[in-house]
């Protein structure tokens, strides 16, 4: 019996199926927990899923690479899902067209704030030089952020983690923060969250309001572009 269980474990651990299933189950638990908490943003499904999976990997002594062989099927869908942002963008096009000037102003202010304040605070608190480079593009969607960090001599995989943490933080604080600021314009709320917290902020915005989600998607895309241009320039200067 024990030998059979052992064999089953070897199968589950080595086969992508086991870790793919674990990823979906962990996220499902996170979603259920958020629903049970009445949709409160600080009960974040991604944070819960990550904590559960990290614990599972640690307990079973599974290397991240093995885990990713299963999880990559979920990871892959980031691409098509990003393309799918075009559909709400098209459907809300009139509102987008009317907001071009405020959007570009908010983009410029947001991009500079995101980079300067992240590096500034980390530097003031004594972070290492490598960490400073790695945290600079933290508000940008993962693949672009990793590319920026790599070009400047940071650690791309550390950047990926800082990016996701930023996304989780953004998804948690956005609603209470924007309410405290008394902002009621869904376009401004969504756009700011997309600029500050990329795809995870966008996912949260879609949860709250369709128009906010659309503007968050635009904010995410424009910030990726702006940061990719701005950070290398600022760095050398």
């Amino acid at each position, binding site marked *: 019996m024990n030998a059979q269980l052992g064999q089953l474990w070897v199968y589950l651990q080595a086969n992508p199926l086991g870790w793919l299933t674990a990823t979906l189950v962990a996220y499902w638990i996170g979603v259920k927990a958020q629903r049970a908490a009445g949709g409160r943003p600080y009960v974040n499904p*991604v944070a819960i899923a990550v904590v559960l999976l990290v614990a599972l990997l640690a307990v079973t002594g599974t290397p991240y690479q093995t885990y990713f062989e299963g999880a990559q099927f*979920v990871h892959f*869908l980031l*691409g098509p899902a990003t393309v*799918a942002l*075009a*559909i709400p963008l098209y459907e809300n096009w009139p509102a987008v067209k009317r907001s071009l000037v405020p959007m570009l102003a908010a983009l410029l202010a947001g991009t500079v704030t*995101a980079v300067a304040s992240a590096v500034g605070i980390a530097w003031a608190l004594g972070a290492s030089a490598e960490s400073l480079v790695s945290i600079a593009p933290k508000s940008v969607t993962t693949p672009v952020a990793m590319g920026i960090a790599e070009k400047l001599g940071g650690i791309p995989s550390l950047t990926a983690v800082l990016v996701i943490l930023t996304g989780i933080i953004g998804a948690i604080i956005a609603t209470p923060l*924007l309410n405290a600021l008394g902002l009621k314009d869904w376009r*401004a709320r969504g756009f700011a969250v997309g600029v500050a917290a990329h795809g995870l902020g966008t996912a949260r915005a879609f949860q709250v309001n369709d128009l906010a989600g659309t503007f968050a998607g635009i904010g995410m895309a424009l910030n990726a572009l702006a940061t990719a241009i701005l950070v290398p320039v600022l760095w050398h200067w």
Partner: protein
Amino acid sequence: MIEAGILLLLCQLAGESIVRALAVPVPGPVLGAVLMCALLAIRRSVPDNLGRTSHDLLANFSLLFVPAGTGIILHATRLEAEALALIAALIGSTALTIAVASLVFVGVDRLMGGTAPQEQQP
């Protein structure tokens, strides 16, 4: 569902190809979204199955970040050593960015005559 999948992947593929060929600093899928938007603008409507598939994908958008997020396990040591500096920077900077970007948006919008339609407010 199949047509929608093909359309999404084709746009992504085109986006990735153009990004690589021209070395533009945009992620391929973002350019793919621009292409998709152009296609929809030409067609002047969203096909039903594309609308449904996209809605399902976006409804579960945050799930897709879980595998990358679990990569935090690779950096446990550094995060422990610099936890205070990094976490403070992430929280402070994210809050500041959301506040600055949203306030600038609303401020500039007001300067331009305020186009926020009333019914879209919470």
